[in-house]
């Protein structure tokens, strides 16, 4: 049965569906809390993330002396370090995703819009790059050129754009067939302005889903590097680096492992749920 077409726009429809998705809403709440805590939290504690205090090593989580989540083997406060690590992890997540977003959208939209041989060559390049074990190259980069946060951004962003390029290209190809694009082309609008004014805005939905699913991937990858000892350098820290330290001492001080592990897992969990909810909201055929 068909229903009468209702006047709601795609966007407000999606918003309504997202609002009825309790798991996604809860995730947004938890994630917001983690982000705010990472930004503001360190100021609430009398401690900082790098001062070593040999009079207070291996302290389990306690209210005494404001070591709410305990201390590590150098007497550094874990509450502050975990949130400080969160700042770095989240920042890498956002920035590297932005890098891959810009490259991916530009590349994918161009390939999809150009079509034909240009598209063929551009996508063949993507195919070839897909087959590269990039993770290993990033590891090599870290080893050779030192642990440089900027390098992490670039390296991770440069890998992740491939997915984005593919998705955007597919969408652009489909969009190109739509009458309103056809009309813009007939009226002689230049390709660049058609891409910028008509194609890119219509990609917002897919891009939003992609962003929420890429950020956790990036955070995960940075943590992976840090865990191998190839991420951010001491005394700066990230969740991955903290998990690494915690894993080394878990017999003696399990909180050093559990606290950053919970932060990392909770963040990834929330991002994944939001991404899922967003995708269902924009394309509700599976629900």
């Amino acid at each position, binding site marked *: *049965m*068909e*229903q009468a077409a209702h006047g709601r726009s795609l966007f407000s429809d999606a918003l309504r569906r997202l609002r009825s998705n309790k798991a996604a809403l809860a995730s947004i709440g938890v994630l917001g809390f983690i982000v705010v805590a990472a930004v503001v939290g360190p100021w609430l504690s009398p401690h900082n993330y790098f001062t070593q205090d040999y009079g207070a090593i291996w302290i389990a989580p306690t209210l005494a002396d404001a070591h709410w989540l305990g201390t590590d083997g150098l007497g550094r406060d874990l509450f502050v370090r975990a949130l400080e690590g969160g700042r770095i992890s989240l920042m890498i997540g956002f920035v590297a995703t932005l890098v891959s977003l810009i490259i991916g959208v530009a590349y994918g939209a161009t390939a999809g819009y150009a079509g034909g041989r240009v598209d063929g060559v551009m996508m063949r390049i993507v195919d070839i790059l897909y087959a590269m074990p990039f993770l290993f190259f990033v590891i090599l980069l870290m080893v050779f050129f030192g642990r440089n946060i900027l390098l992490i951004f670039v390296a991770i962003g440069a890998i992740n754009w491939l997915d984005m390029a593919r998705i955007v290209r597919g969408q652009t190809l489909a969009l190109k067939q739509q009458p309103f694009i056809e009309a813009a082309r007939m009226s002689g609008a230049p390709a660049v302005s058609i891409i910028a004014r008509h194609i890119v805005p219509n990609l917002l939905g897919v891009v939003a889903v992609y962003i929420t699913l890429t950020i956790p991937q990036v955070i995960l990858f940075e943590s992976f590097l840090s865990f191998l000892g190839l991420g951010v350098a001491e005394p700066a820290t990230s969740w991955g680096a903290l998990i690494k330290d915690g894993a080394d001492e878990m017999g003696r001080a399990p909180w050093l492992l559990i606290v950053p592990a919970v932060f990392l897992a909770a963040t990834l969990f929330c991002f994944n749920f939001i991404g899922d909810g967003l995708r269902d909201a924009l394309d509700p055929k599976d629900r």
Partner: protein
Amino acid sequence: MLLDVRDLKVSFDTPDGVVEAVRGLDLRLAAGESVGIVGESGSGKSQSVLALMGLLADNARVSGSATLQTDTGALELIGAKRRVLERIRGARIAMIFQDPMTTLNPHLRIATQIKEVITRHRGLRGRAATKAAIEMLEAVKIPDPARRIRYYPHQFSGGMRQRVMIAMALACEPDILIADEPTTALDVTVQADILDLMAELRQRTNVALLLITHDLGVVAGQCERLLVMRHGEVVERGAIDPIFEAPAHAYTRDLLAAVPKLETPHFARASS
């Protein structure tokens, strides 16, 4: 009465509220009889027959009654247990659908798909089932059936696939064949072939036909009686000829007007 449907109602729970698809359908079908249900898409005609078969989606609400006459007495189909319905489907009531390109499983050989229904309802296995399946393909006039039974669906044309569907549907000698827009997706010439085949097989097997279509021309050649549905309700019903000559409802007149003028419907019916 072979099938007796009374006050059948179908509605769907959707995120935007309840949508009523069928608002009270009454239908009687005698053994060997042929009835057409005509209406535009969204008129509730497909939902009605899917409800009889228990094949609607989970969010469907069905009420009313539909009794099927069986060897062991009258059987209520609406709300029947899944296992009971499984014995009826394919055995007593068989169904063919609109798009033969998607209604056969692309991953399985034709042999598998015909034999499984023969095995299920007639208890034949192995070589006996294969033999029966080949006979069915022969009956629907597929050339070289012994070889083609090994084909996958994509190796057949659209018309051939619909023949396979018909072979599958009639494999267990059902009492009722429900055909949901059986020729809509086919080329015009192929449509005629399929309709001729259905008429011939009906004559031979005396299966009752419930033909669902938007095309009054198709109904004219196949059916004795006719129901016109619109917005989930029956707006007109009766024998074919009177309706074609003097449609009572404005909507039926519109439908009739849509039948190409030059091609006058031929009223010679296969069963008469």
